[in-house]
């Protein structure tokens, strides 16, 4: 995990590593790594990330915000969550 990661980033990283990116080298996943480059995440995985964030951080992520630019990296997802929280 990345040093200096926010609590939200850490929770997302932990979720990805234990639930979705099980085929990744876990220790190497950084908050700035592209989650989409390899093409392994399918629509169903994205929906699971959305559900996880909604349940864990108490936000509602509207469909029009579920876009590649908001899910490109762990940092981007965390920024989206923070924006929706405020």
């Amino acid at each position: 995990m990345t040093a200096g990661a926010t609590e939200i980033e850490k929770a997302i990283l932990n979720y990805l590593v234990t639930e979705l990116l099980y085929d990744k080298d876990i220790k190497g996943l950084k908050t700035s790594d592209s989650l989409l480059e390899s093409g392994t995440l399918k629509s169903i995985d994205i929906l699971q990330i959305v559900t996880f964030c909604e349940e864990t951080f108490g936000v509602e992520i509207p469909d029009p915000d579920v876009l590649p630019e908001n899910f490109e990296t762990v940092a981007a997802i965390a920024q989206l969550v923070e924006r929706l929280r405020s």
Partner: protein
Amino acid sequence: MSSRVLPDLLTCSAERYPRHPAIVMDGREFTYEALEAASNRIAHTLLAHGVRRGDRVALYLPKAPEAIAALYGIMKAGAVYVAVDPAAPPQRLAFIARDCAVAALFTHSSRIATLETEFAGQAPMRLTLLGDDGAAPSTLGGRPVVTWSGLAPVTARPDVRIDSEDLAYILYTSGSTGQPKGVMISHRASLSFVDWAADTFAVNHHDRLANHAGFHFDLSSFDLYAAARAGATVFPVPGKVAPFAAALANLWAAQRLTIWYATPSTLIQLLSHGALANHDLSSLRVVLFAGEVFPVKHLRELMKLVPQARFANLYGPTETNVCTWYEVEALPVDDTPLPIGRICPNCEGQILDPDRRPVPEGEAGELWIGGGTLMHGYWGRPELTAQRLCEISTTAGRSMLAYNTGDLVARRPDGVLTYLGRRDHQVKTRGYRVELGEIEAVLCRHPDIDEAVILPIPDSEVGNRLEAVVVARAGAALDVAETKRHCAQFLPRYMVPERIHFQATLPRTASDKIDRETLLKAHLPG
């Protein structure tokens, strides 16, 4: 006409419409002229390195115009393309590459580092080509690596004899014994489908076709080749956009597409999360879907949003490509499932009982398909081919080579076929066909797993969700993440079970087989 082959579609359109866009993706445009030239350079490069007619060439790169050029280039060299899911693990590519002894690999510079160990010492490999100019080693497995700009400079199509009965491509599908099997498709079989589909849906030069399916999936044969036949434009969906319904809806609406062909899972995602009602879809004239059952309640919603478009349900396993079709004119009010329709005119079908006798009208039997689109067989598996491809009698009493789809269907009095299910352990998930046994075999390969069963949990959006029930070796410290990671090493992602349940034992039937029904009932939601 007998020697007509798939790349002729491109060559003819390049002569008629040289400046017309053949491919538009990520803001880049490939004209027919450019696609023809690029694919010819690829063919010359393969030939110069000794790739010969009938050799297999694997394709393992993310969707891009260069990948489409590669498909044509491989075929123009007389070789057979083997498209592997770019999201599949390198081990799966390696298995497929070994299984059909590929002579070359077409990939991307970003992937080559993960492939060195998989390809080292592979005897028939002659070269690796790259669809880009990124930094890459100069050899893979001791064989040269050729970058995109290093392709042979000759842009005229090489003079290679190709027969319509030659193989065009091999599509690997899930195999019940734990390894995927390669379905061999000839130029003749692919063209039989392409000609029928392009005529039936009147694909023309002005059409703009979506390409959502991967090239390892037979849905793509329509997008690519029906478009090339008509000189139309194909719009491949970038890998980064594909999983995002809202982004896909934005893209498809902005591209003013006229034809969509996708799995019901994809279309339902668009419907549920793509805000389709906010988009102008007035350009859309044909919506085709295949690969799984489209629940009528979702289809009704989609048809309301695009009232001007024709809708058709296409049916057919990889072994026969599309062999029946049903044009949706009116939807059943009671939400009974859509029929799979009538046998396409280029195919022949019979509904037979287990003794291969025709069943009476209205009764369930297995659908056997012969005719124009029939596969050549399974690569390197003559015994399996003989099991599934058999001579049967047609209604007229003639003998015909046909494929047993394993799908149970019944014929209505009006000749329309309805789909009833299957007798074996094959299911559909997100449009992909999966043999549960293949996943179970992979699970049991793990040293800490004694037994494993995959349960298909029916789901109205994706067909089936796959869950695993695993009996771990006594005392083993096996967890969900490790189990999934193990699966992901050998299987494409859609085959990795979403949930893993650990149990001490599995229920048994009286004959001491695993009681799948009881297990399934225990794990059904609600």
